[in-house]
């Protein structure tokens, strides 16, 4: 039942923590002049977006739920309505299971009528996956239990060929081991890069569906300036995730000692 959490990553990093590395990778997905939103339970994407907002996406519009950075009148309702109107360009989702075809499961492990684990539910992710131009998936663990051939329950469908007016869907997947790219034509994931220190064999073994191609570049590591900028954004992160921010600062502290 053990999973490889981000603390046990085989990553070879110098000068930054795994969380900062993943946040930086997420920052690279944020584009200037777009509307980007971050939902709840997403500290690493929030840190990445805060980095982007202060570096290459200064003209973007950001809806960061619970942060107080971008006041909205009606909270998550306003996020959902924005996406329904087709005005959200980038959002971040995760899943208890993510399958080969990019479907997400946030509903239950095992059969729906007799689940082994009942999960909190989709909370709008089906619609957000469908109506956001680009959705970047992230996970804080990488194992065959998460990356499965087929989700036990499809809460959010990655592709809907019989509905030609779908607006967007998955584009990238960022895990503690690698990044993947969604091939919208083949409707499946392709390996895009391996994080420093991670072998192809390791990523393949921890993934429950075929992982190709075998030969990919190493994921870009943040520069010293980028790491400094990520750390400068932690006070803002703390407003939404005080416990996470505290733990991150502790890990940063133990890096330099």
């Amino acid at each position, binding site marked *: 039942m053990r999973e490889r959490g981000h603390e046990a990553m085989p990553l070879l990093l110098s000068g930054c923590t795994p969380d900062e590395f993943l946040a930086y990778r997420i920052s690279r997905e944020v584009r200037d002049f777009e509307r980007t939103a971050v939902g709840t339970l997403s500290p690493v994407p929030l840190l990445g977006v805060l980095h982007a907002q202060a570096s290459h996406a200064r003209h973007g519009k950001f809806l960061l739920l619970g942060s107080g950075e971008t006041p909205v009148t009606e909270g*998550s309702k306003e996020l959902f309505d924005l996406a329904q109107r087709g005005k959200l360009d980038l959002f971040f989702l995760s899943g208890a299971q993510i399958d080969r075809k990019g479907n997400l499961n946030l509903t239950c492990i095992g059969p729906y009528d007799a689940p082994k684990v009942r999960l909190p539910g989709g909370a709008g992710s089906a619609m957000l996956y469908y109506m956001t131009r680009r959705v970047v998936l992230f996970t804080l663990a990488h194992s065959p239990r998460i990356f499965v051939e087929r989700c036990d329950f499809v*809460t959010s469908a990655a592709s809907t060929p019989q509905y030609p007016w779908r607006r967007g869907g998955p584009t990238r997947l960022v895990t503690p081991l690698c990044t993947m790219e969604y091939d919208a034509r083949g409707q499946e994931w392709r390996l895009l890069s391996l994080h420093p220190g991670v072998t192809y064999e390791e990523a393949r073994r921890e993934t429950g569906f075929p992982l190709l191609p075998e030969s990919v570049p190493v994921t870009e590591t943040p520069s010293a300036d980028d790491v400094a900028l990520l750390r400068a954004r932690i006070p803002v992160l703390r407003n939404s995730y005080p416990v996470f921010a505290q733990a991150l600062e502790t890990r940063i502290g133990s890096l330099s000692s």
Partner: protein
Amino acid sequence: MLGFADSDYEKVRADFRQVEDPYTGWKIFVVPPIVPDWAVIHAIRADENGNVVCSALESDRLAVLAAKRAVVTVEEIVPAGEFVARPGEVFLSALHIDLVVIAPRGAHPGACVNAYGIDRGHIEKYLSASKTEEGFSAWLSETVLGKTEEEYLAFAFQELNLAGKGA
């Protein structure tokens, strides 16, 4: 509703129906409205006329508008002349409310917008207590059952002050 296409909701939610949008001709899912018998929400303040200002960030106002009958508990009553909605708050007319109850710290151990935050210590206590039936019963009798309003308030204020999250 957009987005239910090809998801497994189709298999388990017979009440989510697929129809043709009469305006565009697209296939689209519709879901029936939720009409609660009662909505009970906690709000920030009321005026003497029963108008209320509640959190804008959750769907509290929507729940009241959707329900057949609604009860709103509030932190305090303020004079109508000083009755305003600040950022993060929204006005809710007495028109939609059946009963307003004054209940200071009524959201404890949850948060009340612009008044106090989540009582993390208490939530953690509850989470570990509720892992077993016995633990949950003990928690219930320690904090809820047989407590008067005054006793609970004293307890909640003490916890909030300890957490340093008073208004």
